[in-house]
């Protein structure tokens, strides 16, 4: 089966205030999506304010220049649409998908909060309570809730930016003030620090006119310089054991640094490698640890601590994580992984292995951009981080072009001295 690529039309422009805009028409269904991406995320949080980027994301839904609290939700949903926002290591996004007759309304709603969110003591207290419940439901009251996305970065990294808890400590969250929020907005939510991505059932010229109408007069201010978050690679294994009081059985996660995602030629072999190791029953580690040795009950491998290889900047990692029964020593699991990595590095890929994994990754990438919303979001990240929204259609072809030797060379880099290991001990074992 030949791997297909897609070619999505992209029109881009930059407004006078510095806002970068990408528009991608697609008339297949009467649906549009609007996404605003701000170039600030967990890594940019000030010390003593862990979790602030995410708390601030919540505050952006609490009313804006002309809209009272609750109005944003109501306007989107009563127009037949859905909305959300999310906070990542390197960006924070806000988005809506709606019937195409609500395009201008959606642009207005997004522009209104880029102009000025309404952040009050009352809204801050309310959303602080909501965020605490979010952290309780996903982490504090949930076995494996922080594993490994919050617990492995501090093992691997030394700087506050890369290693701290992005959901936030309650003490830090409770210290946040309205003034903190105002300064954060002023600094990071400048039009010039954002990308607006609009896709779906629309006319590009009309859409651009609407964007000019609603965004054009938002005053420009300088975009902050993005700090260099680089850290040196590990030179000796780091290993930490943590007890999860709720977990009934143990788990382990391993991570190795990978090349800067900006350098796709160097980075993509690692994307392929993660799938060679862990995708499906024909993958190397499942065959070895799950079906063969039967010492692992579930296994995953991926790039980026939050699971998406294409929405993260340097420094980042390839992660392998495995759940194993209490009776299985963690060193057996790690030894099995090491042996399989060495076997791949020494003996190379077998016939057909590369092509089938490439087909699988390509199909997965295409599936992710079938929805107008999924595509509009992927284009926003690609434009923000690479200036290339077109990447979302080109990715299957790029994956198909990855050389087997590069994948094998990547496997040879996953050696013990370069890795961070987090052992999760089962505090809830019966």
């Amino acid at each position, binding site marked *: *089966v030949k791997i297909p690529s897609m070619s999505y039309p992209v029109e881009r422009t930059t407004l006078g205030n510095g806002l970068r805009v990408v528009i991608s028409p697609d008339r297949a*269904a*009467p*649906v549009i999506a609007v996404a605003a991406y701000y170039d600030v995320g967990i890594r940019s949080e000030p010390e003593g304010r862990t979790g602030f980027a995410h708390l601030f994301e919540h505050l952006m839904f609490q009313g804006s220049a*002309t809209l*009272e*609290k*609750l*109005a944003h939700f*109501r306007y989107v*949903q*009563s*127009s*037949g*649409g*859905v*909305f959300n926002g999310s906070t990542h290591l390197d960006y924070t996004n806000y988005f809506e998908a*709606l*019937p*195409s*007759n*609500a*395009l*201008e*309304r959606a*642009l207005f*709603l997004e522009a209104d909060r880029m102009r000025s969110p309404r952040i009050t003591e009352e809204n801050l*207290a*309310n*959303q*602080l309570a*909501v965020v605490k*419940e979010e952290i*309780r*439901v996903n982490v504090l*009251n*949930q076995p494996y809730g922080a594993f490994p996305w919050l617990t492995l970065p501090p093992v691997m990294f030394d700087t506050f930016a890369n290693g701290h808890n992005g959901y936030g400590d309650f003490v830090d969250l409770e210290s946040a003030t309205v003034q903190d929020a105002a300064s954060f907005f002023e600094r990071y939510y400048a039009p010039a620090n954002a990308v607006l991505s609009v896709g779906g059932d629309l006319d590009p010229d009309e859409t651009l006119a609407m964007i000019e109408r609603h965004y054009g007069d938002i005053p420009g201010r300088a975009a902050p310089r993005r700090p260099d978050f680089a850290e040196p690679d590990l030179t000796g294994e780091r290993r930490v054991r943590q007890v999860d009081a*709720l977990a*009934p*059985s143990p788990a382990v996660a391993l991570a190795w640094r990978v090349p800067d995602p900006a350098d796709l030629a160097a980075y993509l072999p690692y994307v392929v490698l993660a799938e060679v190791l862990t995708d*499906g*029953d*024909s993958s190397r580690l499942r065959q070895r640890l*799950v*079906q063969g040795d*039967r010492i692992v*009950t579930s296994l995953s491998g991926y790039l980026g601590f939050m699971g998406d290889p294409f929405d993260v900047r340097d420094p980042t990692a390839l992660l392998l994580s495995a*759940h194993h*029964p209490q009776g299985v020593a963690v060193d057996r699991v790690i030894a099995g992984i090491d042996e399989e990595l060495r076997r791949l590095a020494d003996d190379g890929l077998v016939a*057909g292995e590369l092509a*089938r994994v490439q*087909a*699988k990754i*390509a*199909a997965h990438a*295409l*599936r992710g951009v*079938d929805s*107008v919303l999924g595509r509009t979001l992927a284009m926003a990240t690609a434009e923000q981080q690479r200036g290339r929204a077109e990447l979302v259609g080109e990715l299957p072809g790029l994956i198909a072009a990855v050389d087997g030797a590069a994948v094998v060379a990547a496997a040879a880099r996953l050696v013990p001295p370069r890795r961070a290991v987090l052992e999760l001990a089962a505090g*809830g074992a019966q």
Partner: protein
Amino acid sequence: VSTPTAVVPGLTAARSPRKLTVAQRTLATDLRVLVVRRATVPLVEVRLRVPFAGRPADHSAKAAVLAETLLSGTAELSTVDIAAALQEIGGSLNVGADPDRLLVSGNALAAGLPRLLEILDAVLTGAAYPMEDVVGERERLVERLHIARSQPGVVAREALLGRMYGDHPYAREIPEPAAVAAVTRAQLRSLHRSRVVPAGSTLVIVGDVSPGRVLDRAEATLSGWDSAAKPQAAPRLPKLETGPVLLVDRPGAVQSNIRLGGAALPRRDPQYAAMQLANMIYGGYFSSRLVENIREDKGYTYSPHSVIEHSSAGSALVMEADVATEVTAPALLELRYELGRMATLPVDAAELESARQYAIGTLALSTATQAGLASTLTSVLASGVDVEWLREHTARLGAVTVSDVQQQSARFLAPSALATVVVGDASATGLALSTLDEVRTQ
């Protein structure tokens, strides 16, 4: 909320979604095949739904192990061969079981569909359930069930289903680890012969394909999957005992998982659209009374919601709110207050209009992708209505009145019509809960 509406742009004329054209054929084996062309990406989505209701106490355990091992090889192919063959076409197949059905969900690059159908046929007609795989998958499933049961959401789900369904198989959605450990290879082979059969089964295919050719291909490939066996119907549901609040103790829990459950109308009921909108106004979307009250006003919870779940023996209304331990009783009070308001007072016309537009808009969004359409079609057909139902549902939603909503609210959203389960720290929540209602601690 009063916003100067003059500044918010109005909606322009809506464009209708394209007409849903479904090619279908019922094969001689009784398998029903439906194909929709959607060429948005060069992929194809496949859903095979096999009715799988069963009465024995260990049925759900057997079904769960069968789901884990259906793809574990045939006489010719090993687990690894099947997985590799799927990867070659950029594809995957997943098998899941619930008390109503076995569902094989898959996808692939569109050009790989013939191969995907061959693999499907190979396991439907020749799944071997190799001893080694059965033992391995059974062990893994037991381990994963232990992990699942450490999650408060799963504990709460199980307690609510037990409360709503008693001895009915729907109470055993999550199988017992001990029952799973006892499942044998012979039982799986026998279950496959008697229950993995085309009668009553539906195959939905959506993607960048030619429907006529796909129907021919599906018929040619799958005609060997044949059996005289017929599916069984799920038993009738027991009468719901709303009873005292069931408090499941989870010492030290920092949150309480509040669950309310009751009956709901099935899709085929003429009043279903009214009930759907009543639920939406109560807690079915973000702009609902429940979210605006206990999240956006009081900050008790992150993501409270109320959903309608459809099963063949009857639909259910399920409400969920995970709240801070110290506000457990106040949160339950608000859940019930909002229910009482729905049941006894008419909703505002604007609330109804908002819920209506949301229901219509999100139906269009969810059927705009290949995967969304395949899943929606599969579940709609499973509720005993036809494709026509999907085409006409927007018009039905459009016709619902305030009075229709109130009638359904009084029936289904009355506080007296729902059973209540709370999973949390009993020592910290029990006393306050008992000021609201009778409480039984477990």
